[in-house]
C-alpha cells in the first residue's frame, strides 16, 4: 500500500519519513488486527457471567478486572474493540467513497460544484455530533444508524482536498501537454490524476477512521448506536457509569484506553501518510 500510493515523491529507503511510515504502519496493523484476531479466538458466547467474580479489581487472573456481572473485562474490551474497528471501517469506507465521488464531481463540473458546495455548507452548518445523531435517528438507530450517521457526515474535509487537488492537476502544464499529444481522457486520468489523488485518498481514509470510531463510541454511549446486547466500547462505558460511583474505576479506564490507543495509532499513521503525500512538507 505504502509503496504504490507514495510514488509521488521518491523517499530514500533510510529517510526518517520512510522509517516513521514503516513503524507506524506496523503499529497500526498490530493494533488493528490484535483485537479482531483475539475476539475470533474467543468463544462465541463471550466471557462467562459469574456471581463469584463480581466487581473484582485488576489482578493477574483478570488484568482489566471484572464487571458487575462477573465478566472478565479484558475479554469484553477486546471483543468490543473488534466491533468498534469493524464499524469504523465500514463508516470510513463509506465516507471516503463519498468524498472521492463528490470531490471529483465538483472538480470536473461547475454546476455540480455549486450543488456540492451548498451540500458541504449545510453539512458543516450543524455541529458534527448533532448531525451524526440526526442521521442515526433518521436511519432508525442500531448498527446501520451508526454506519450511516458516521459515514454520511465525514466526507466534507477530504472532498475539499480532492477537489482542490484535482483542479490543480487538471490545470497543470503536463496535462496540457498530454492533451496536445492527443492522449485519451482515460490515459490522462490514469497517469496524471490517479498518482496525485491516490495518496490523498489513502491518507484521508486513515484519518477519517479515528473520528469514525470515536463518534461511534459516543453514539453507542448515548444509547443511539450499537444495541446494548452487542459488546462495544460505548455501551461498556455507559454501563460503567453505574459502577463508577461505587469506585469501580477499572470498568471505565481500560476499555476507553483501548479505544484511545486504536484511535491514536491511526491518527499518527494518517498524519505521516498525509505528510508523505504532501510535496510542500519537508521530510519528517
Amino acid at each position, binding site marked *: 500500500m505504502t509503496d504504490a500510493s507514495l510514488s509521488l515523491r521518491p523517499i530514500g529507503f533510510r529517510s526518517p519519513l520512510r522509517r516513521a511510515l514503516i513503524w507506524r504502519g506496523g503499529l497500526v496493523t498490530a493494533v488493528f488486527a490484535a483485537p479482531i484476531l483475539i475476539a475470533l479466538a474467543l468463544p462465541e458466547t463471550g466471557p462467562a457471567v459469574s456471581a463469584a467474580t463480581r466487581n473484582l479489581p485488576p489482578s493477574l487472573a483478570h488484568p482489566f478486572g471484572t464487571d458487575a456481572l462477573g465478566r472478565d473485562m479484558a475479554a469484553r474490551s477486546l471483543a468490543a474493540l473488534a466491533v468498534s474497528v469493524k464499524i469504523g471501517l465500514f463508516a470510513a469506507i463509506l465516507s471516503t467513497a463519498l468524498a472521492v465521488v463528490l470531490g471529483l464531481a465538483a472538480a470536473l463540473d461547475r454546476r455540480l460544484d455549486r450543488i456540492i458546495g*451548498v451540500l458541504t*455548507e*449545510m453539512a458543516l*452548518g*450543524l*455541529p*458534527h*455530533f*448533532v448531525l451524526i*445523531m*440526526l*442521521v*442515526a*435517528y*433518521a*436511519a*432508525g438507530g442500531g448498527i446501520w444508524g451508526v454506519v450511516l450517521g458516521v459515514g454520511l457526515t465525514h466526507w466534507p474535509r477530504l472532498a475539499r482536498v480532492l477537489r482542490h487537488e484535482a483542479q490543480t492537476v487538471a490545470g497543470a502544464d503536463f496535462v496540457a501537454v498530454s492533451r496536445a499529444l492527443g492522449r485519451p481522457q482515460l490515459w490522462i486520468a490514469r497517469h496524471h490524476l490517479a498518482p496525485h489523488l491516490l495518496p490523498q485518498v489513502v491518507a484521508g481514509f486513515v484519518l477519517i477512521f*479515528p473520528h469514525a470510531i*470515536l463518534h461511534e*463510541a*459516543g453514539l453507542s*454511549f*448515548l*444509547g*443511539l448506536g450499537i444495541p446494548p446486547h452487542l459488546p462495544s*466500547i460505548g455501551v461498556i*462505558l455507559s454501563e*460503567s*457509569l453505574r459502577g*463508577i*460511583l461505587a*469506585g469501580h*474505576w477499572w470498568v*471505565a*479506564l481500560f476499555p*476507553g484506553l483501548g*479505544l*484511545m490507543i486504536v*484511535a*491514536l495509532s491511526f*491518527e*499518527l499513521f494518517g498524519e505521516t501518510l498525509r505528510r508523505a503525500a504532501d510535496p510542500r512538507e519537508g521530510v519528517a
Partner: protein
Amino acid sequence: MDLQLMRRNWLARLLLERLIRLIWLVPLAMAGLFTLVSLAPVDPVQAYVGARVAQVGPEQRAAIAEAWGLNAPAPERFWLWLSHLAAGDFGTSITYNAPVLDLIAQRAGASLALIGTAFFLALALGFSLGLLAAAMRGRWPDRLIRGLAVVLSASPGFWIAILLISVFAVGLGWLPACCATPPGLTAAETSLGARLTHLILPAVTVSVVGISALILHSRARAVAFLESPAARHLAAHGASRLRLAFRYGARHALGPALTVHLAGAGELVGGSVLAETIFAWPGLGQATVRAATGADAPLLLGIALATLLFVFCGNLLADIAARLADPRLREMR
C-alpha cells in the same frame, strides 16, 4: 473615496453577505432536517401514545393522525410545519409535554453557561500551553504539550468525563459528580459557589473538545513569529524566549487562535451533548438525547434549528475576530 468607504464598512459588508447566506441556508437546512426526521422509521402517533397504548383504540389513532395532518403528502406537511414556525409555533415536545420554544428558552441558559465556561477555559489553557510549547520548542515541555494535544484529540471526551468523576468526585470527593445544583434544591436556592463547583467538571469535559486544536494552532503561530526577523531583533536585545513568546508572540497568535476557536464553537455543542448526559446537566444537550431516544420529532427539529443558528453566529464572530485581528482580511472578498 469609494475605496475608503468600502474599507470603513467592512463590517457592514460582512454582515450583509452573511445575512444573504442565512436567507438561503436556513430554508435549505430546514428542508434537509425535515427530510431526515421524516425518514425515521418511527410512527409519530405511537410515539405520542407511548405507554397509554391500551387506552387508545384505532379510531382515536386515526383521529390523531388526521388532526396532525399525517395523512397529507410530505411537501404539504413540510409547508404546514413552516407556516406553524412562521407563527412562532414550534410544536409540543412529547417527552417533556411542553411547548418546544419554551423548553428551548428554559434550557438554553444552562447550556450556554456550560459552553461559555468551556469556551474560555479551553482558550486560556490551550493558548497558554501553545505559547509555552513554542517558547520551549524542541525541548521536553514542547514534546509533552504536543503529546497531550494529540492524545486529547484521540480520546473520547465522555471517557475523560468518567475518569474525572472517578478521580475528583469519587476518589478525592472534591467535586460533585452530578447535576447543576445539590439534590433537592433549585438554582435560585443555591449559592453561587455551589453552582460554580457543579460547573467545573462538566465544563472541563466540554473544553477538552477544543483544546488540542487550539494548542497546535497557537503553537504554530507563535513559532512562526519566533523565527521572524522581528523576534531575532528582540532576542538580540536580550529578550528571553519565554518573554518573546508570551509578551510579543501572544499578539501574533491570539487573533488566529480566537478565530479557530470561535469557528470550532459548534464542536463544543457536540461535546456538551455528551457532557450534559453524563452529569445530568439540565440543558439542551440532555434534551437532544432524550428527544432522539424518545422519538420526539418536534423537539429534535427545534433544537437542531437553534443549534444551526448558534453555529452560524459562532462562524460570524470568528470572521469578525479574524478581521479585527488582521486588517488585511478586511479588503478581501
